[in-house]
């Protein structure tokens, strides 16, 4: 565990795009869709019910009480956010919503704020900025009509660093991201552009069988989570992360 104390996040890339500011908006701002990545297309992790196929799941857990399973799930989340007390609180809120069987979309400003600070997200924003810059070079700085397919590039929090700082258990590889253009300026004399963009990252707070089977031997809380979702009918939900970013670039 001591090794993971010194684990650092991936480096922030330098690609000519500057992030001037980032904030977490309270709701989805109105703007123009300008980019999106490819949806991962996983739907199994949002399914739930009482008749899931239990083959391969730790057998000793199948008859445990809901309270026992939630205790183990809670233990898992605390272990995975051991170096980030703020995200431990977010984890508690997520488990509570799951336990309350609410479903739907869930935005937690604390999670968005944590994601906003990571180099994973900053690099994703900068990568988008670089792709936008190429399109602007092509259109001589005209933002009108630009739309960008980001492909399968996505914010992914699967590193060892995020494994013990909370974002791997809460998000890991994200489902879908879209970007809206809120406003922009282009200076003809310097060829510099500046714009406000809204990034919305969607993820599924749910567990599918493949992940349960893969990770339950690392921590039994994964088996508890899968049983609660697929055998006891507790309801997964979509996590929404909202970030506004002001970025700057220069066309050549």
């Amino acid at each position: 565990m001591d090794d993971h104390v010194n684990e650092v996040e991936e480096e922030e890339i330098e690609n000519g795009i500057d992030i001037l500011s980032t904030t977490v908006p309270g709701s989805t701002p109105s703007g123009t869709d300008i980019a999106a990545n490819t949806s991962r297309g996983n739907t199994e992790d949002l399914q739930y019910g009482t008749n899931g196929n239990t083959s391969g799941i730790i057998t000793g857990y199948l008859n445990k009480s809901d309270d026992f399973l939630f205790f183990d799930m809670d233990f898992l989340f605390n272990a995975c956010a051991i170096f980030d007390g703020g995200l431990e609180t977010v984890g508690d809120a997520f488990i509570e919503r799951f336990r309350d069987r609410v479903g739907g979309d869930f935005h937690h400003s604390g999670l968005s704020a944590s994601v906003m600070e990571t180099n994973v997200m900053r690099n994703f924003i900068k990568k988008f900025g670089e792709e936008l810059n190429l399109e602007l070079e092509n259109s001589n700085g005209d933002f009108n009509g630009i739309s960008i397919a980001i492909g399968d590039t996505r914010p992914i929090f699967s590193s060892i660093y995020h494994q013990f700082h909370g974002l791997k258990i809460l998000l890991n590889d994200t489902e879908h991201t879209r970007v809206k253009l809120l406003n922009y300026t282009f200076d003809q004399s310097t060829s510099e552009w500046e714009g406000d963009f809204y990034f919305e990252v969607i993820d599924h707070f749910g567990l599918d069988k493949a992940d349960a089977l893969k990770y339950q031997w690392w921590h039994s809380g994964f088996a508890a989570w899968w049983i609660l979702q697929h055998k006891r009918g507790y309801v997964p939900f979509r996590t929404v992360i909202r970030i506004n970013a002001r970025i700057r670039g220069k066309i050549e």
Partner: protein
Amino acid sequence: MNNFFWLLIFFYYYLLILSLFMLNCDDLSEGFSIESFEIMNYIHLLEVDDTTEIVKADYYLVIGYRGTRMQNIAIDSLVCKNKASDANLYHTYFINIYRKTPKTNTEYTSEFPRDFYRYSMRNDHLFRYKWTYSGLSIKETYKGAFAYESEKFNCVVNEGD
């Protein structure tokens, strides 16, 4: 004596040609090859401001990649040769090149598809070629999950067809 002299000349000439040939083909002859990574190919609908556009991506695996100039030329050449003939009909068309490793190959990715995003994209992504509706033609070189270099790229032979 005269025959021996010419035999010697011929021998040295043969050695020279052989060396030049081996220099040129060094890394292409030592287990380097490219194969389709077809299970990752996709056609995706991009919804932007009430319009739906089509995005297509093809994937390839490189075996024995060492990053030499000859190997990179071979990859560029394969990309141009295999670029979809209807690429200009898509909003964006991608060709992704990955290094073939124990965790990035057809069998493993079929069994553990999520590891493609969690591992392969971070560790084995080499290049992404991109052609867009707006006329952009870009080659991106990857290090980790994000490209660290983008350059304009033209398939002269392919696009001249």
